[in-house]
């Protein structure tokens, strides 16, 4: 079996349908709400990280089998060690301020939260700015040497571990229970809770 690899109009329609499903999931899981994200970072409600780690646990196992049967192929963009570290830090700083990631802001805006438009404008303003300093970036963080143990694939990083996908899934399950026990969350709708408060 091989991936479908649609092209042309079917690819466009598939993108629209997959996006519709994703938008639906973002709202049903509450991860698009600003309050869910802010409560997560202030350690009041663990819903966001629980969704993240449960999807990583299930997804890693699903991906392992799908890859072995040839249904999917590894499709990731190249990542740089210091780019990921500083990127995660800046992303976290932004989330602590606005409480939304790009796709969540699109979903939130579509549900009548007009204030998400400001977040979206901020995001669109960032793109030309990063493009403007991209040459500087290429000479700095993308060239800084990564630690000697670093490898772009985790299979290379932990080459001694047998079947790493299952280890990653097990770790993600542990993280899920960690956030479940220290924060709980999801008992009350974030939007309803905000209304009551």
């Amino acid at each position, binding site marked *: 079996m091989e991936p479908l690899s649609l092209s042309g109009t079917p690819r466009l329609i598939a993108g629209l349908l997959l996006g519709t499903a994703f938008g639906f999931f973002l709202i049903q899981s509450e991860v698009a709400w600003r309050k869910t994200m802010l409560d997560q970072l202030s350690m009041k409600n663990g819903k966001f990280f629980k969704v993240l780690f449960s999807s990583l646990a299930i997804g890693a196992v699903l991906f392992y089998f799908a890859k072995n049967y040839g249904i*999917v192929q590894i499709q990731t963009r190249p990542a740089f060690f210091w780019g990921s570290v500083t990127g995660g830090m800046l992303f976290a700083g932004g989330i602590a301020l606005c409480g939304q990631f790009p796709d969540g802001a699109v979903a939130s805006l579509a549900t009548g939260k007009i204030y998400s438009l400001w977040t979206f404008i901020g995001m669109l303003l960032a793109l030309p700015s990063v493009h403007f300093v991209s040459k500087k970036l290429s000479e700095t963080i993308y060239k800084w040497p990564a630690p000697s143990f670093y490898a772009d694939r985790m299979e290379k990083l932990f080459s001694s571990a047998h079947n790493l996908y299952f280890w990653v899934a097990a770790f993600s399950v542990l993280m899920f229970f960690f956030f479940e026990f220290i924060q709980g969350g999801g008992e009350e709708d974030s939007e309803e809770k905000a209304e009551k408060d």
Partner: protein
Amino acid sequence: MLNFFKGKWSALISGFSISMLFILTLYVLNTPVGMSDAYLKISDYCRDSINMRRVAENFPFDWQTAFLVGIAIGAVLASLAGGTWRLRIIPEDVKSKSGTMGAFGVSAIQSVAGGFLVMTGLQFAGDSFIGQWAAAMQLSTGAWIFIFSFIIWGVVFSGVSRASGGKTSPQKKGKPDK
């Protein structure tokens, strides 16, 4: 069955649905899941429109921008089904001593600055957030570093924000508006 689509989902059901969707996307499109190119194209389109002082023709409609349009459609469907569609100009947790206009200004500045940092961080990391999410499933080391950097720094920044009197949650409200 209908209640399933109306009610909120647990973390496990949400996680399962999102992971299935990422695998399906990889199967159907066979490309990295991230949307970073779509945001770049929309940004360029907006820049062209501003430069020409009219709406530019030929909106860049490919599978990535279609995915973003789909997100909006799916979100509307879910919020209408669940009864969560509400028009809001100011986030429910933002309060200001200067009243509604003050809260509006505070939320606008916070959101623009936050959005700017969010996208800058994603550009540094090389992909959009769902791209990092899907890449972590495929055991990309960079995606896992990004996720842990986000978790650690997110908790730190949120703590600093609360310690310095920032209002990030309704449980920590300032004085009520007069």
